[in-house]
């Protein structure tokens, strides 16, 4: 049935095709727009009312969610009442249009807009200037923002730290996840132990920062320690070895922050590895055992190659994740003591220093860093030929 529509499309007259496209674009833009207006009006109304907070929150939820549902329903109703052909031509866009429009507004266009901003000084292009006018204005600095990113210490430190995050953070998350997955696979306590290792995944970075700050808490050596780390360190080494002193040891203080994310992310890699390990056919492992392979051999020669695809996926996911790491650093140190990363520098430049030119340039650097992964994803997608 769907095939028919496609054939029919080609036989349409130019005018009809034009009208169809106008209609599709219209639907894609108008639905989110009306949804936005409806929610917006309600929102302003709510904001100005004096109702108790919980009631406002409740109404806002119903309003927002209900408004969006209603809109799909109304537009689908309109399109279904059109002549049969037109329904078929336009209906998919009632369904897919809003998603596409929102993605364009929130992700696709901003890439171009951020790049554009990155070519200008701290306040962006002059207000109301045309494209050419903006390029001719004094605010246009070309690639100077990028040059200053890489010549000043600003981003060099952040890139060094991000590399540390990638090298230590993602690697250890993967290794620990693999270790837990393999161990729990052979244990009777698989469910419990996996649950407990997985639990930190539910905790926010801000919450995790508080938790670990408490662990790193350091007290004068003669008084009792209240942080776990120093409670262990003092009796063993007779000295407090934590945060307070380590904070000065650039760049190794980053490891204290990285530890937090390893703690959070190991659960993620564990879950994926665990599922992948269960997918290894028992016969292969059995055959290896019969041939006299010991556990370690079968781990490195069979399991690792078998789940290599998963390892790569998990690794890249965590690398992307650590590349964008922000909350932990921002809450723990605010980027002081040489712990800035790309995302904290981005925040500082864009919102604290209000230098949109440099901030945008940093965002573009971040985007360029993930492009290899994007290309890999697209290749995988093409290969799957799901379409």
């Amino acid at each position, binding site marked *: 049935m769907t095939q028919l529509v496609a054939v029919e499309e080609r036989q349409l007259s130019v005018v009809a095709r034009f009208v169809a496209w106008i209609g599709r674009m219209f639907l894609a833009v108008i639905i989110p727009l009306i949804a936005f207006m409806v929610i917006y009006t309600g929102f302003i109304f709510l904001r100005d009312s004096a109702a108790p907070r919980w009631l406002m929150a409740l109404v806002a939820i119903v309003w927002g969610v209900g408004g969006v549902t209603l809109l799909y329903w109304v537009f689908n109703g309109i399109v279904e009442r059109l002549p049969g052909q037109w329904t078929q031509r336009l209906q998919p866009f009632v369904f897919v249009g809003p998603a596409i429009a929102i993605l364009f507004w929130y992700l696709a266009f901003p890439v171009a807009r951020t790049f554009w901003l990155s070519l200008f000084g701290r306040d962006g292009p002059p207000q109301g200037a045309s494209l050419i006018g903006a390029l001719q204005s004094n605010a246009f600095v070309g690639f100077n923002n990028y040059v200053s990113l890489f010549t000043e210490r600003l981003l060099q430190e952040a890139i060094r730290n991000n590399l540390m995050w990638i090298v230590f953070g993602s690697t250890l998350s993967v290794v620990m996840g693999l270790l837990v997955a393999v161990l729990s696979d052979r244990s009777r306590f698989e469910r419990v132990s996996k649950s407990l290792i*997985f639990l930190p995944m539910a905790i926010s970075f801000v919450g995790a920062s508080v938790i670990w700050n408490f662990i790193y808490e350091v007290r004068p050596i003669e008084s009792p320690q209240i942080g776990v780390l120093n409670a262990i360190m003092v009796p063993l080494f007779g000295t407090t070895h934590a945060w307070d002193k380590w904070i000065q040891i650039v760049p190794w203080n980053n490891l204290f922050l990285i530890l937090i994310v390893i703690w959070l992310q190991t659960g993620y890699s564990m879950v994926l590895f665990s599922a992948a390990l269960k997918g290894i056919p028992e016969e292969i492992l059995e055959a290896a055992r019969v041939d006299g392979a010991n556990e370690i051999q079968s781990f490195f020669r069979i399991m690792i190659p078998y789940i290599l695809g998963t390892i790569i996926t998990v690794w890249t996911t965590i690398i992307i994740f650590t590349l964008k790491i922000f909350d932990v650093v921002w809450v723990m140190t605010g980027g002081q003591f040489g712990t800035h990363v790309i995302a904290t520098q981005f925040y500082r430049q864009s919102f604290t220093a209000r230098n949109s030119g440099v901030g945008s340039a940093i965002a573009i650097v971040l985007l360029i860093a993930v492009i290899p992964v994007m290309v890999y994803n697209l290749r995988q997608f093409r290969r799957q030929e799901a379409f």
Partner: protein
Amino acid sequence: MKQQKWTGVLLVNGALLLLVIVWSIPTLGLFISSFRERTDIQSSGWWNIFPHRQWEMVSTYDPKQLGLDPNSVMSVEGVQGTFEQLREGIQSPDGKTRVTWIGNKRLGKVEVQKQVWTVTWDFTLDNYNEVISARNVTITKADGSVETIPGQNMQQAFLNSLGVAIPSTIIPIMIAAFAAYAFAWMNFPGRRILFIMIVGLLVVPLQIALVPILRDYSRLGLNGTFLAVWLAHTGFGLALATYLLFNYISTLPRETLESAFIDGASPFVVFTRLVLPLSVPALASFAIFQFLWVWNDYLVALVFLGVDPSYKVVTQRLADLTGTFGNDWQLLTAGAFLTMLLPLLVFFSLQRFFVRGLLAGSVKG
């Protein structure tokens, strides 16, 4: 052979137990500490709730009555030492008792202490009261004195977080489900290229969008409103949601859907009556994922909700607390656990769905 197997089992479970303990201690410590008296948190580690050996006073003496001179070497209760040594405490040769000088040279006293097994079990809900309450709270201190301090009003932040997280979870799922259905079961021009765009956008870091979107918002007067955050989370979560739901919806049995079409059902009816109910597992997986993500989000709230304290979400309030009350561990521990409460509940009750969502390939931009 059997011996070897046993050591293997022991090794595996031992290593696993060690890892589980290491992984659980941070959260456990926070949880326990949040119920301890504020003075206890500051003066002793939370592990003191477990039985431990501690010196306890058996008897005291007035040094003057014993005729001790603090400026020379003294001999008390079978131990000998200077004032400084006694201040530190001197153990008797058999290690059973300790003699300690408490206080200064002139007015101090000498204590004979014995080591006993003990637990510190003074638990309280005061910390939570102080963090949650919007009004002043009175705290009774260990010495019986009463202090009135303003509550941190985390209850408001909690409601704000709910108000932000629920629509930010439902709206993108709904929009994504419609789109995923269209991609999977409808044919339209541009279908392939649009889906490729979605796959490409999966890993785009959201930092790229913050400055332009903030500019749009300030033009629309949206900054600092929940609506701004809902839309932002919708925009940033939509690519992943559409991708995941497409993966699921496209594998629904073809016969079921086709027979519905042949019976004359419209795509909308098929979607609401057939596809949505059949996709509940995928919808639930993503919903949990998105909910946890929004609830735990700090950056988006920081940028779009701004500085108005009455609109801040829990992560913002907690981050503020760490900034302003960095050493008030009674506030921080209770506050942190409060922010974790709902995610942990969701996590424990719906872990199965959460894991399934992760396995479906969750890479978030």
